[in-house]
């Protein structure tokens, strides 16, 4: 080992030292990029600073201007908070789709579970069952139902959702490609339906000496959902982050997004991130180089899902209510479009994608709808055709910029015209078809434990 590896000390002190170093490194990096491409860095900085002060500007001045002087399609607090919620989800889905290359069409299920965890842990819902527990919340002691503080709720949501991610992943991650997508699709349909229908549960189970009997218990609030849910609350400062708190909720969203970004980036540039990349590039070769592919994919699933849990519990707490209607299949697709549009694999790209699409969904189309309604000619309301608009945007993007707004360098290469296989042919490599006749697909008779090739190509490649 070299001196550089010994330079890193041990313990918490070293850890904080490293954090300080990275912050210092950010400063150095900033100055370097300022030197390298001044205009770009300055413009980006201005955009970020404007974005950070925009919520306050909007509250103090722009909302008033837009209301009384001239109507502009400016995002309001709710729209901005949803931008952050969807950005967190996009960053999470990007771990699954972008880093590990697994297509997840049921991501909304984890969002829903996160929201219901918040509903179960911070609402009067359980008062009907006589369960009352209050701890450090914004409601006084002795309140009806369970009221845990938001920060604890988020942590529980992360754990619960990651567990569900692993539970879904364990039996399905041996599947590749399309099959996995279909299973996740089913999961995404089942979970909201379960929440919708578990409003009167009657059950009696006898397991030896244990008898579980419930009669007509309202578990999930059914179609009405659960409300009111306690808003996010910062104890000691007594700050509420609900839908009436204006920019505060946006800043809480930015804070949660920042954590999500740090988590995603740290994972991306680490041992596990390299495993994901290797699996995406060539699963068989990764396996042969010692990557435990099933475990890595399971981790991608669980970690990606946990960010949806954060987004879900934040959304439910922020709105103060949750119903299963929030969690439709279209939401899964929406988040996927955000990831593809922004740039699969690039954390910053998917955030841009999420902000852009949420802006169109929550601000621009309703604004257009308002203008259309005000106009004397009867026109269709564009707000009702939001998915048509996404479809058109996606088509245009796929035609002119398939790699997304801010593409990942590596992903872009995978999409490029000359793939690796072509390069091999171009180099005049002899193609030995040794195994084609030996392992025809579907004729492997080694039983369920076999890990034979699934395609002719794969058999040939080995």
């Amino acid at each position, binding site marked *: 080992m070299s001196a550089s590896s010994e330079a890193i000390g041990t313990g918490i002190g070293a850890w904080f030292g490293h954090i300080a170093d990275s912050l210092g490194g950010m400063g150095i990096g900033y100055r370097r990029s300022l030197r390298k491409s001044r205009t770009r860095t300055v413009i980006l900085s201005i955009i970020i600073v404007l974005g950070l002060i925009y919520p306050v500007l909007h509250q103090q001045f722009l909302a008033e201007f837009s209301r009384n002087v001239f109507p502009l399609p400016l995002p309001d607090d709710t729209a901005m908070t949803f931008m952050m919620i969807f950005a967190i989800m996009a960053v999470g889905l990007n771990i699954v789709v972008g880093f590990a290359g697994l297509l997840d069409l049921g991501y909304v299920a984890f969002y829903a579970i996160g929201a219901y965890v918040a509903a179960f842990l911070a609402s009067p819902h359980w008062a009907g069952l006589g369960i009352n527990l209050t701890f450090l919340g914004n409601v006084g002691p002795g309140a009806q139902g369970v009221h845990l503080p938001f920060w604890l709720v988020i942590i529980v949501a992360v754990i619960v959702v990651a567990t569900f991610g692993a539970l879904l992943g364990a039996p399905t991650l041996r599947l590749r490609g399309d099959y996995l997508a279909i299973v996740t699709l089913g999961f995404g349909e089942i979970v909201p339906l379960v929440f919708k229908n578990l409003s009167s549960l009657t059950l009696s189970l006898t397991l030896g000496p244990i008898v579980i009997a419930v009669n007509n218990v309202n578990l999930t609030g059914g179609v009405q959902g659960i409300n009111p849910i306690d808003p996010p609350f910062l104890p000691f400062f007594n700050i509420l982050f609900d839908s009436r708190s204006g920019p505060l909720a946006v800043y809480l969203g930015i804070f949660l997004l920042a954590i999500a970004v740090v988590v995603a980036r740290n994972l991306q540039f680490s041992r596990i991130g*390299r495993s994901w990349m290797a699996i995406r590039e060539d699963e068989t070769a990764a396996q042969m180089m010692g990557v435990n592919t099933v475990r890595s994919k399971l981790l991608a699933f669980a970690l990606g899902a946990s960010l949806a849990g954060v987004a879900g519990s934040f959304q439910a707490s922020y709105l103060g209510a949750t119903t299963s209607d929030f969690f439709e299949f279209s939401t899964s697709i929406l988040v996927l479009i955000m990831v593809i549009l922004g740039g699969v694999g690039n954390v910053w790209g998917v955030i841009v994608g999420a902000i852009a699409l949420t802006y169109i969904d929550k601000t621009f189309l309703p604004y257009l709808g308002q203008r259309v309604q005000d106009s004397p000619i009867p026109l269709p309301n564009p707000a009702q055709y939001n998915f048509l608009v996404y479809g058109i945007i996606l088509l245009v993007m796929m035609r002119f910029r398939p790699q997304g707004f801010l593409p990942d360098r590596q992903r872009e290469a995978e999409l490029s015209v000359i793939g690796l296989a072509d390069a091999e042919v171009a180099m005049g490599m002899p193609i030995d078809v*040794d195994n084609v006749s030996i392992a*025809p697909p579907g004729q492997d*008779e080694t039983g369920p434990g076999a*890990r034979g090739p699934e395609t002719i190509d794969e058999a040939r490649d080995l």
Partner: protein
Amino acid sequence: MTTDMTSPSETPVTAATPATTSSIPTMLTGNIDPAMMLVRSRGVTKKFGGLTAVNNVDFDIPRGSIVSLIGPNGAGKTTFFNMITGYYVPTAGEITFDDRPITTESKKKVRSKKPHEVTAMGIGRTFQNIRLFGAMSVLDNVRVGLNVHLGSHWWDSVLRTPKMLREEQAAIDEAMDLLRLVDLDKRSEWWARNLPYGDQRRLEIARALATRPKLLLLDEPTAGMNNSETREMTDFIRKLRSERGLTVLLIEHDMRVVMDISDRITVLDYGQVIAEGAPAEVRANPRVIEAYLGRGAAEA
């Protein structure tokens, strides 16, 4: 110990008919202590549907030797490779590596270690058609190979704990050492797919070495190379054996390479061992000539 292998008098050639293939190991172990075998396989069979790709193969690899597996196309060489690495589960038979089982047979059911477990046991491999992670840097390709020896968890990565940072730095140092070994340290930031062909072959070996193998499986390492590149590669393989104490199992079609560097050669044809022994003996074996050139050539 390696000099023993090269001495023809101590490794008798066996031109066995399929019915007597099981006698090879007895003859072999008569000369070499079983404990010196790094890989031992007994009765290994692999069937794909009605086709028997590998049929009842007994095959041992002495520690520290360079052993070649040759045979005509479709003889089952790569299938055998894939069973050693755990990618295929044999239909029957047992393989042990370093006195630990890779596959075990019990109650008519064969179980096999998974590929990543086999890699962790100490078997590294390259592929017939290069299978690098093309859009990853040369350095990262090698770091993926080091993965099995890293102990930090995902939460270490999320929190950037000192343990993880120290480990990553050590991994980078080790990877750079390996790249220096294959003369690719100057190109560590290149994408693997942009490397010239010969460099890609060497990078694949560096990646396999990163798994810290005791046994290195090379599937046609000189395919598509010109004479001087081939010579460099054979010298390099010899160097790996002498400097790192590696045992090497080679699949190769270039007979000059095979005859040049092998201590022992095993010939497969239609999934069966038809000959085994030192290069000179195998070359003179009529069954081998028949398998490669046809009956007429063998009689001529």
